[in-house]
C-alpha cells in the first residue's frame, strides 16, 4: 500500500499557519514524498480560524482528504472544528498553554516567551515535535528550518530542538518511512504561473492586489531582481491593463493578474486588445462571487465570463491549468500564443490551484520563447497588413523608418481610422481568420488531458484544480477523466474522440450552475450528471467518493 500521511495545522490568522504547513510539507518532501498543501483562511488579518492540510504520499496527490493522521492545534477552536477528522491512531500535537486535549501537549507559548521570541516560533517547536513523532532525525528538521525561516534562524533551530526533545512517549509513534526520491520543488499555482511566464519572456508584471492573485504579485516582486523583471502596482485595474498594453505595444512581454472584480474593470481593455491586436496575458484568479463574495475561498465561477467578456467580436484564448506543473507550462504557452497571434490570452485559475502547493517536476528547458511574426524590414510598414492567417508582422516604436500605429477604431492596414464598409468587413474577417488559425494551432497541442481508464463507461469531466480529487477517485474506481486545458477555442475535436460510447458523462466543478457541463452541452455533447460544490471549499477526495457513489450507481 502507498505510504500516506495527512497533517492539519490550525490556529488563528497571524499564527503563521500557512508557514507551518509549508515547513511540514518540506519535511515530507525531503523524505521523498509527493505533497499537496491546502490552505483555508478567512478575509481578516488577525484572529478567526485558519488551517492548512498537508497531505504527503508515495504517489502524486493533488487534493486533501477529510481525515488526518496528525492535528497540530494552536488553539482550542482547531480541535472543536477539526476533531472529527481524527482516526484511530491519529495524534494531536497541541499548545498545552492554551489548549486542553489528549495527545502530545507542549508548552509552545512558554517556549516562545521564555526566549522572548515572537509567538510565531510556536510553529518551529511544533515542527520539531512532529518530526519526533514521525521518528525522524533532527538534522532533517534543521535543514527545513534553515531553508524556510528568514529571521532568527539559530533561535528557531533551538526552539525546534526543544520541541523535538519533548515528544516523550510519542517519539516514533508514526514511524514514517523515507522513500527513495529526490526532493521536488513545492510550488503554488501562483508561483508556477509566475515562473512559467518569466521563462517565456515576461519582463513586466502589473497588478493591483486582489486575492487570490496577490501572492503572484508578491512572489514576482520579491524575486524581481533574480528574474530580471519589473513589477508595478498602479492605481487600479484599469491602469493595470492599460500600462501592460502600452508596454506590449512597445515590445515587452507582460502579464497582469487579478480576480473577478478586477477582471471586470479590464474588460474594456480586453476589447481594445481585440481591435488593436495587442498581445496580453491576463491571469484571472477565481474566488466565490458574485461581487466581493468570499474573498479568500474557492470557486470556479468564471468559465463563460472570460470567454464572452468584452464588447464586439474578437479572438481570444482561454486556458485553464489544474495543478502547478500545468500552470507553469500553460503560463509559458499563454505568452507564446498571445504573441504569436497578437491576441489576449486569459489564464483562468481557481483559488485552490493558486493558493495550494503541489510537488512539481519542472523542466525549464522545455519552455522556449517562440519568436513572433516580426516585420522583415522590407518595404513600407503596415501594422495591420492583411495576411491569410489574420496575423500581421510586428514592429515596435523606436524602429527607424517605421511608423507603428495601433488603433481602437476600425482602421486600414496602416492603422488609420476608417468607417468604410468594405474595410469593416475585411477587418472582421481578419479577426475570423485569426480565430481559425488559433484553432488550427491548438489542434496540434495538448488541449485536454485524460487519466484513469478511458475505456470505462463513466468518464468524469472536470477543470482546474478540481482535477486533483477527480483523478484520484477515478483511478481508484476505474473511471476515466477528461480535463480540458483550453476552454476557448473549446477542443471539440477531443470530445469527439473521447465521448462516443460513454454511458455516463459526469461533470465535477466548483460552481452552482455547472458551467463546464453547460459549455460541453452547448457544443452538442451529452452530459449525464453534474457534481457541483459551491460552499467556497475545495472538494476533498472523500467528499467526491461519497458523491460519486450516488451518480455512478
Amino acid at each position, binding site marked *: 500500500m502507498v505510504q500516506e500521511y495527512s497533517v492539519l495545522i490550525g490556529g488563528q490568522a497571524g499564527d503563521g499557519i500557512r508557514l507551518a504547513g509549508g515547513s511540514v510539507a*518540506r519535511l515530507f*518532501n*525531503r523524505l521523498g514524498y509527493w505533497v499537496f498543501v491546502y490552505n483555508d483562511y478567512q478575509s481578516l488579518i488577525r484572529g478567526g480560524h485558519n488551517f492548512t492540510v498537508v497531505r504527503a504520499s508515495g504517489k502524486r496527490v493533488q487534493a486533501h482528504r477529510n481525515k488526518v493522521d496528525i492535528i497540530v492545534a494552536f488553539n482550542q477552536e482547531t480541535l472543536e472544528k477539526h476533531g472529527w477528522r481524527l482516526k484511530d491512531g491519529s495524534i494531536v500535537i497541541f499548545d498545552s498553554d492554551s489548549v486542553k486535549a489528549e495527545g502530545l501537549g507542549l508548552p509552545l507559548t512558554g517556549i516562545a516567551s521564555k526566549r522572548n521570541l515572537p509567538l510565531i516560533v510556536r510553529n518551529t517547536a511544533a515542527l520539531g515535535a512532529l518530526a519526533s513523532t514521525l521518528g525522524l532525525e533532527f538534522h532533517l528538521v534543521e535543514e527545513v528550518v534553515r531553508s524556510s525561516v528568514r529571521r532568527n534562524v539559530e533561535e528557531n533551530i533551538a526552539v525546534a530542538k526543544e520541541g523535538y526533545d519533548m515528544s516523550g512517549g510519542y517519539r516514533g509513534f508514526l514511524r514514517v518511512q523515507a522513500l527513495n526520491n529526490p*526532493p521536488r*520543488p*513545492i*510550488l503554488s499555482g501562483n*508561483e508556477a504561473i509566475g*515562473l512559467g511566464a*518569466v*521563462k517565456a*519572456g515576461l*519582463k*513586466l508584471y*502589473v497588478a493591483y492586489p486582489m486575492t487570490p492573485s496577490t501572492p503572484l504579485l508578491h512572489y514576482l516582486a520579491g524575486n524581481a531582481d*533574480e*528574474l*530580471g*523583471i*519589473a513589477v*508595478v502596482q*498602479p*492605481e*487600479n485595474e*484599469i*491602469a493595470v*491593463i*492599460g*500600462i*501592460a498594453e*502600452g*508596454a*506590449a*505595444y*512597445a*515590445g*515587452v512581454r*507582460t502579464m497582469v493578474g487579478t480576480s473577478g472584480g478586477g477582471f471586470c474593470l479590464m474588460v*474594456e481593455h480586453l476589447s*481594445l486588445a481585440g481591435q*488593436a491586436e495587442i498581445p496580453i496575458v491576463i491571469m484571472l484568479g477565481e474566488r466565490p462571487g458574485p461581487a466581493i463574495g468570499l474573498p479568500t475561498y474557492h470557486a470556479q465561477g468564471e468559465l463563460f465570463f472570460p470567454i464572452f467578456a468584452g464588447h464586439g467580436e474578437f479572438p481570444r484564448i482561454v486556458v485553464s491549468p489544474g495543478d502547478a506543473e500545468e500552470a507553469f507550462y500553460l503560463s509559458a504557452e499563454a505568452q507564446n500564443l498571445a504573441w504569436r497571434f497578437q491576441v489576449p490570452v486569459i489564464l483562468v485559475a481557481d483559488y485552490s490551484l493558486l493558493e495550494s502547493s503541489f510537488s512539481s517536476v*519542472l523542466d*525549464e528547458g522545455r519552455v522556449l*520563447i517562440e519568436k513572433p511574426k516580426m516585420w522583415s524590414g522590407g518595404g513600407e510598414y503596415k501594422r495591420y497588413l492583411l495576411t491569410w492567417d489574420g496575423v500581421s508582422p510586428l514592429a*515596435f*516604436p*523606436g*524602429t*527607424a*523608418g517605421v*511608423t*507603428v*500605429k*495601433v*488603433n*481602437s*477604431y476600425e482602421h486600414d492596414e496602416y*492603422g*488609420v*481610422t476608417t468607417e468604410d464598409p468594405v474595410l469593416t468587413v475585411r477587418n472582421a474577417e481578419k479577426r475570423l481568420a485569426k480565430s481559425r488559425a488559433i484553432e488550427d494551432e491548438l489542434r496540434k497541442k495538448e488541449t485536454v488531458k485524460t487519466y484513469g481508464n478511458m475505456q470505462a463507461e463513466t468518464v468524469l469531466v472536470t477543470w482546474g484544480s478540481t482535477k486533483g480529487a477527480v483523478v484520484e477517485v477515478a483511478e481508484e474506481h476505474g473511471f476515466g477523466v477528461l480535463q480540458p486545458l483550453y476552454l476557448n477555442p473549446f477542443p471539440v475535436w477531443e470530445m469527439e474522440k473521447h465521448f462516443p460510447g460513454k454511458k455516463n458523462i459526469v461533470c465535477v466543478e466548483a460552481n452552482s450552475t455547472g458551467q463546464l457541463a453547460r459549455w460541453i452541452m452547448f457544443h452538442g455533447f451529452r452530459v449525464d450528471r453534474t457534481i457541483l460544490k459551491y460552499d467556497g471549499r475545495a472538494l476533498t477526495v472523500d467528499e467526491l467518493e461519497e458523491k460519486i457513489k450516488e451518480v455512478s450507481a
Partner: protein
Amino acid sequence: MSLRLEDFSTYARNTWCPGCGNFGIERAAKLAFAELVNEGKIRRENIVMVTGIGCHGKIADYINVNSFYSLHGRAIAPAVGIKLANPMLEVLAFVGDGDALGEGLEHTVFAAKRNVDMTVIVHDNRVYALTTGQFTPTSPKGFRGGSTPRGAPEEPLNPIELMLVSGATFVARAYSVNLNHTKELVKQAILHRGFAFIDVLQPCYTFFDTYKYYGPRVYDLQKEGHDYADWDAAMARAREWNYGGEEVERIPIGIFFKADRPTYEEIVLAGRNLRDASVPKISGILLRHT
C-alpha cells in the same frame, strides 16, 4: 535634411470642423516635432503619441508618427507602460478634457504623482465635443448642452491646481490660437525630464465657441516675470481664473510651475532594460522551493 511640418502629415482626411482649435494644436505639435528632430534633440522614430477618444483623439490619424489610439479616458496608462517598456521613447498623450479629467481622471493624477517622464496635452475645449456637446469637468457652471438644457449643475475643476497638488513637475497652459507659444511649450514639455502637463485652451467652434472670450483675456506668465520655481506663486496664478465665466479679466498662459525630481521609470527600472531578450535560469529558485 531638415524636416518640415508637411513631413509629419498623413493621407487621412481631416474631419475637424472649420475653425476648430484642434488645428492649432496639430500644427504646434508637428512643428515642435520637426524642430526638435532638426535640432537633433529627439529622433523621429522615438516619438509616440497616445490619444484618448474624442475630437482630440483624431490627431493620431493626422500626424505621421508612432501612435496608440486608445480608449476614451485611457490614454495615459498605456503611455506610462510605453515609457516603462522603452524609456528612450518620447511619449506624449493627447487627451480631451472629458477624457483625461473625467472618464480617466485617476490616471492623470497618478502619472503626475509618479513623475513619469512624459507629456500630457489636454485639448481643453471644455465640452464633450465628439458626442455633440455635453458639459465636462472644465465646463463653466450653467453650461447649456444636450444633457443640461437648464445649465450644468457643477462648478468646474481647475486642472492646473489639480496638477500642482498631484506632483506634476511641469505645469503649463496654452491657447491654441497662439501657435508659436503653444509650439514652444510643447517643445519644452518634451524636453522636460519628468511629467509635463499642458492644458491647451482649445475653442470648439461648434459646441463652445470661446474665441471671443479667451482672445482679450489671455496673458503670458513668462512676460510678467512669474517665477515658475515657486509653487505658491504658481498656485496663486492658477487661481486667477477658475474656468468660470465673464467675471474674470485675465487668464494666464505659459509655465506655472517647473521642478526637478527623479522619474518613475528611473526608480522602477533601476537601470533594467525590459527589452533585453535574455531569460533567467530558475533552477536556483526551484531549489529554494524544495
